[in-house]
């Protein structure tokens, strides 16, 4: 996969250490610049300090969960238009409906998607 130019930055918010390592490595190999936040409030701080091109947001995280992060950033005029893909292992359709109602552009169940398919979903998002 060719790096997209200019290099896109993705903020990955996930408290699961191994999953964060895997996604960071996989996305960087595909040419993205990846920064990792390990909990919800760290994610918001990082978003405000350096606006990325896209956010991959886990839902169950310490300090502030993904739903709250999503709601907060959608209320921030500088961040409201930032595309957020929810990447979680909660698979209930009510979770998806809630996340989408707060403005998530996509909802992905981590266990159900390969790295290849995740990259395809990201490309689709950047092409949109």
């Amino acid at each position: 996969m060719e790096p997209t130019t200019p290099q896109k930055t993705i903020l990955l918010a996930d408290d699961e250490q191994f999953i964060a390592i895997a996604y960071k490595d996989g996305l960087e190999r595909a040419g993205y610049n990846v920064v990792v936040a390990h909990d919800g409030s760290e994610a918001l701080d990082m978003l405000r300090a350096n606006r990325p091109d896209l956010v991959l947001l886990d839902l169950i995280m310490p300090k502030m969960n993904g739903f709250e992060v999503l709601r907060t950033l959608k209320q921030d005029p500088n961040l409201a238009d930032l595309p957020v893909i929810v990447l979680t292992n909660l698979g209930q359709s009510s979770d998806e409906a809630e996340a989408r109602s707060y403005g998530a552009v996509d909802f992905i169940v981590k266990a159900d998607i390969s790295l290849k398919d995740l990259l395809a979903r990201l490309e689709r998002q950047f092409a949109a």
Partner: protein
Amino acid sequence: MRPKLAKHMSATKTNILGVGLLCLAVVVFVVTLLDPPNLKFIASLLLALAVILFLAFWDSLRTRHHELEQSKDEFVSLVSHQLRTPLTSMRLFVEMLLDNQVGPLNDKQHEYLRMVEISTGRMIDLVSDFLNTSRLELGRLEIRPQPVRLQDIVAGSIDQVTALASQEKLSIVFDKPELPEVPVEPSLYGQIVNNLLSNAIHYTPEGGTITVTLSQNPSGFQLDVADTGIGIPMAARAELFKRFYRADNAKHVIGEGSGLGLYLIKKITDTCGGRIWYESAEGSGTTFHVIIPPSGMTPTAKAKA
């Protein structure tokens, strides 16, 4: 868990108490038939009181039963989330290793890692099956239809198993049709397709063909999955859609099946207003058909409060 158990115990006690009160009421009622009218009046009051108490206990029993179900649902959700987390990292690391992204693998390493990949995939599917089975049984499976193109879901499911099928020297034929969007719950429809494909692959010997057809007819959107596999014995047909049931010839096929797949598909199709049926000849193959009504899946009523 302990407080929940204690609650369950007290629910049983309440039950006994309620039955006792009802018996008392019956006795009082019988006595009133024999005694003077003023006693009859008192007895009627007692009877009314007993009935009210009984109803109140009955209601508290039902509430407790509901709480128990709720805690079971929460427990299953929690377990499935906890299981999916390590499975996700296994899946991702294995995928990167197999793609030679971390360095070249020798043939044996590649072969063994493929087996890890397949096993991990099976575990992930099992977790979803258990979760949905539990939800269906508690009447909590949510069906929230949204307009989707079924052909995209089917094509996506086929993509996911192409590697596995080619490893088993099976070919999958699917002529993707142009169908209009229809309201279905994509994850549930995907689960139907995945389970049918996984069965077809599992029970079809090397060199076989799996033919998938998706079409629209007056009764709805019909999916056919035809394999050239071992078939379903006559003796198994009455039990086929029962939970944990596995046909005798299925038990000889390498690799475990959970006996949940068809049970789950049947439950999902029944719940959403669809239908599943099949034809099979032992030794030459099986075709499963699933039809979703023309108007799509029936949404579930609002979740119970």
